[in-house]
């Protein structure tokens, strides 16, 4: 899905790349970069040959990206459920599942060039309508680029966001 979105002129950023699997699959664009806050993830992504930065979301990056990919942590997690390890950090979406998503959208315009796109994975556990409200509030228009219904009934959508 990510590859289908990529254009030859794109400078691509994957936020929260994890093992770097998605970022390493992207071809036929100008450049690909990735971030993750997890020390194990950045080592794994670096071993795949990805240009990776250890940082919180997009902190410390300049405004050069035309396509940004993000599959945010989204599992609704109560404070008393937290165990504070790196795996949890990759999944924990805050009490309503929309914590990292909201923080990302508040900042992403700082690194996205005019006309740039964001591809973001959203789960029905985060409530699509609530997420769409956040997109609008942060100045993005959106379309649904793809969707999939999992065996347990959870739906995943890939939203394509643009800033008008």
């Amino acid at each position, binding site marked *: 899905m990510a590859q289908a979105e990529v254009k030859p002129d794109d400078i691509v950023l994957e936020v929260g790349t994890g093992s770097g699997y998605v970022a390493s699959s992207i071809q036929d664009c100008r450049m690909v970069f990735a971030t993750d*806050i997890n020390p194990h993830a950045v080592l794994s992504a670096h071993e795949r040959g990805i240009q990776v*930065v250890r940082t919180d979301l997009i902190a410390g990056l300049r405004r050069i990206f035309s396509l940004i990919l993000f599959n945010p942590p989204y599992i609704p997690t109560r404070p008393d459920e937290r165990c504070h390890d790196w795996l949890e950090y990759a999944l924990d979406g805050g009490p309503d599942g929309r914590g990292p998503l909201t923080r990302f959208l508040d900042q992403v315009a700082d690194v996205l060039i005019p006309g740039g796109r964001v591809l973001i994975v959203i789960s029905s556990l985060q409530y699509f309508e609530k997420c769409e409200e956040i997109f609008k509030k942060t100045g993005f228009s959106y379309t649904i680029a793809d969707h999939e219904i999992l065996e347990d009934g959870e739906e995943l959508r890939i939203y394509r966001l643009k800033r008008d």
Partner: protein
Amino acid sequence: MKRELYDILCCPVCKGDLELKVTEENDIEIITGSLICHACSVTYPIEDGIPNLLPQNI
């Protein structure tokens, strides 16, 4: 990190320029070094070829 990665980095706090100091470099990339924000008086390390822009203890 390759040199081209340096071009896209700035201070995560003040967004200002970072000075690159290379300690170890091979044919491909910078292995260890530091990225210094003079405005914030903070040094961000480069280790194992990866720049670390997380908040540092001053």
